[in-house]
């Protein structure tokens, strides 16, 4: 491999390119301290290179799951290999606003990343470069196509008169939560089931409750099991009264479905996106607190 010889004068325009190129470039050292922060990163994060330089990545961005990112970055240091992450794994590494805030349909920027080793003179890898690509349009189209396919499939089966919304898995739930965080008005409901007697086995009660909840929510809503006895609901454009109505409807549904002794009691905490939360954890915490107050 031949290395192109770089004249000192060329450095100027190379730096210009680094600053203006429309991908994010970050150089990190062994301690995950930021060594380079290019124009893309500055524009989207609002942090200047001066204030980012020397800072620990995970301290500066506590949102980044450090265990996860280390798993991707350590092989680069140790094995001199490249690693990649795609938006299907995690929608983004850095939470940035969508590049097209007006006509873009996603609230945040979906990102693919590459992590490449940077060899120093002694052939050791003391630094890595993280490259961030904006793949929002691709991801949105992909998700649209997937949804259309699902809709087409469910309309094919003639048995279902009213659409029953299936429960989301943890991954879909987190994605919906992220997407709803910046939306104008989405209510996050945390439901808790309590059994008076010894709770039946999960396989016994969960399908029953799932079908009850699914019938009560609409296509724009999301429901998911958060734990064995907790259900999360994301309802769009419902005020508190409408949410409360839904819960009382669910309570009477439960009474119809379970015998007196086995019937679980239902408690709910509500927290709405319009109150403004910095991240999804804070939002979920607020709903959990509301739930605690209701007990």
């Amino acid at each position, binding site marked *: *491999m031949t290395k192109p010889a770089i004249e000192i004068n060329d450095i100027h325009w190379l730096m210009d390119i680094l600053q203006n190129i429309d991908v994010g470039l970050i150089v990190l050292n062994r301690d995950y301290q930021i060594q380079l922060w290019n124009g893309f990163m500055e524009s989207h994060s609002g942090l200047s290179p001066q204030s980012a330089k020397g800072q620990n990545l995970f301290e500066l961005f506590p949102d980044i799951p450090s265990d996860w990112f280390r798993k991707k970055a350590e092989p680069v240091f140790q094995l001199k*290999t490249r*690693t990649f992450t*795609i938006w299907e*794994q995690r929608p983004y590494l850095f939470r940035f606003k969508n590049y097209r805030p007006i006509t873009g349909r996603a609230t945040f920027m979906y990102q*693919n990343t590459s992590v490449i080793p940077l060899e120093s003179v002694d052939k050791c890898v003391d630094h890595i470069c993280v490259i961030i690509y904006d793949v929002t349009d691709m991801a949105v189209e992909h998700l649209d196509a997937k949804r259309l396919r699902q809709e087409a499939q469910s309309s094919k089966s003639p048995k279902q008169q009213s659409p029953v919304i299936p429960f989301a898995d*943890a*991954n879909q739930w987190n994605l919906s939560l992220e997407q709803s965080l910046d939306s104008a008005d989405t209510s996050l409901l945390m439901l808790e089931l309590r059994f008076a007697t010894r709770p039946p086995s999960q396989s016994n009660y969960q399908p029953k409750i799932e079908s009850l909840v699914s019938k009560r929510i609409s296509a724009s809503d999301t429901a998911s099991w958060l734990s064995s006895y907790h259900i999360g609901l994301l309802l769009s454009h419902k005020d508190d009264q409408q949410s409360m109505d839904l819960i009382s409807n669910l309570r009477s549904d439960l009474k119809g479905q379970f015998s007196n002794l086995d019937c679980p009691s239902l408690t709910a905490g509500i927290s709405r996106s319009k109150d403004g939360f910095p991240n999804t954890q804070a939002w979920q915490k607020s709903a959990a607190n509301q739930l605690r107050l209701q007990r």
Partner: protein
Amino acid sequence: MQQSIDTVTLTEEQRDCYQELTNVAMGQAADRLARLLDAYVVLPIPKVSLIDIEDLRSIIESTNDDESVSAVCQGFIGAGIAGEALLLFNDTSFTDLARLTRYEEELTHQTQLELLMDVSSLLIGACIQGIGEQLEIHFNQGHPVVLGQHCNVDQVLKSGNQQWRRTLAIEIHYTLETVNVNCELLLLFSEDSAERLNHIIEFLLD
């Protein structure tokens, strides 16, 4: 592009040469995998062959299962030589892989994807760079794409520039000792790239 009538050929000598190249590269890859997983990787003998579109179809079809993520492909290009690396897992491998890489969570669709991405980054990267180093070609890698779940085999094979009939494929079958993990790495070169590669190999042989 000029349409060539004669398809790619492979002489016995060339086959040996590819096999040797791959041996070195995948040795490096296996070493990295062993260090990542802390397990002994059985070094296989790579299989160099010409495959046609029907062979590829059956390979991709076997991954087209809605339930699990089982394949990742990644494009690479350098010095006018282009190809794709395809990494395939059988489903039973995931449980053992998860244990080796210390993923504590439940084995969901998401964890399978993480595992697949981790291992593919390592194996594909090491193999391609290893082959590239020996041929003095720097290969650029694109982003990996998950196959299986989202792809319709017919669409993938029909669309675009799939004008090829037979092309060069290198198959490497990795297994781990004592645990039930096996995966298949497939390096596929486009038809015109295979011809170019053959030229480079001829130089090495002379």
